[in-house]
């Protein structure tokens, strides 16, 4: 009984560590901000070339987002979706985590050129 508890604790700890490890070790670089709608590239921005921050309106059949690009960072600053998860996420600066606005089928990822 007791051993079984330790088995599960150990199994889950190893799996969690592996998952976190993959996340932490996988890249982190990238300079291009790629905006996808429905899996198709909508716009690609070289974040190293952005001197003055500006906004990109993304208006599709699903809804309206305003993408804000600055030197080395990209964020969604406005969205007419109900959850606002993409807006609350703030800016991303590396390839680890994408910004996703699910109701609008929108994905923003930082990728290698």
């Amino acid at each position: 009984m007791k051993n079984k508890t330790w088995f599960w604790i150990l199994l889950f700890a190893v799996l969690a560590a592996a998952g976190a490890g993959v996340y932490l070790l996988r890249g982190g670089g990238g300079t291009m901000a790629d905006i996808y709608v429905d899996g198709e590239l909508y716009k690609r921005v070289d974040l190293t070339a952005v001197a003055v921050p500006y906004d990109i309106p993304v208006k599709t059949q699903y809804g309206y987002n305003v993408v804000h690009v600055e030197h080395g960072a990209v964020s969604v600053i406005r969205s007419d979706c109900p959850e606002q998860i993409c807006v609350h996420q703030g800016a991303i600066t590396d390839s680890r985590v994408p910004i996703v606005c699910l109701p609008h089928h929108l994905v923003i990822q930082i990728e290698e050129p």
Partner: protein
Amino acid sequence: MNKTKKLVFMALLAAISLGIWAAEAQIPPIVPVPGIKLGLANIVTLTAMALLGRRAAGDVLIVRIVLGSLFAGSFSAILFSLAGGALAWGVMALTIGRFDDKKLWVVSVFGAVAHNAGELGAAVVVTRTASLLWYGPVLLASGIVTGAFTGIAAAYLVRAVKPFVQRL
């Protein structure tokens, strides 16, 4: 427990889980990664499953998802919640018989990981962006941590409420 008492108790659980779910939605995300949340409402689903059975837990879960999405979300939000919720329910229903109340946290971890897998799968299908799957490992890790936490909470709740339920 007769049918009426069970129904009232289930309604109570549904109301509690809806309240917990709405309260958690107001907390700013702890980590800036979408999809990672504690999933506190699953404490109630798991408690319902341990005390009243799989079927009742599924009913409580569906009521919470539908009402919650009506109050705070959109139609697409219902689909995502259902994808995650149904998978979590299925996995927990399959595993809960193999573990006693003390090991409820193991069931909870399975449920949380299944929930994350369901939502990630739905996200990949909707956005048609397969590279979102890179996101799987971190959701696995977070599901294990949050699932263990809510499972331990559910185990305490079950222990406290079980004598009361048995007297009903």
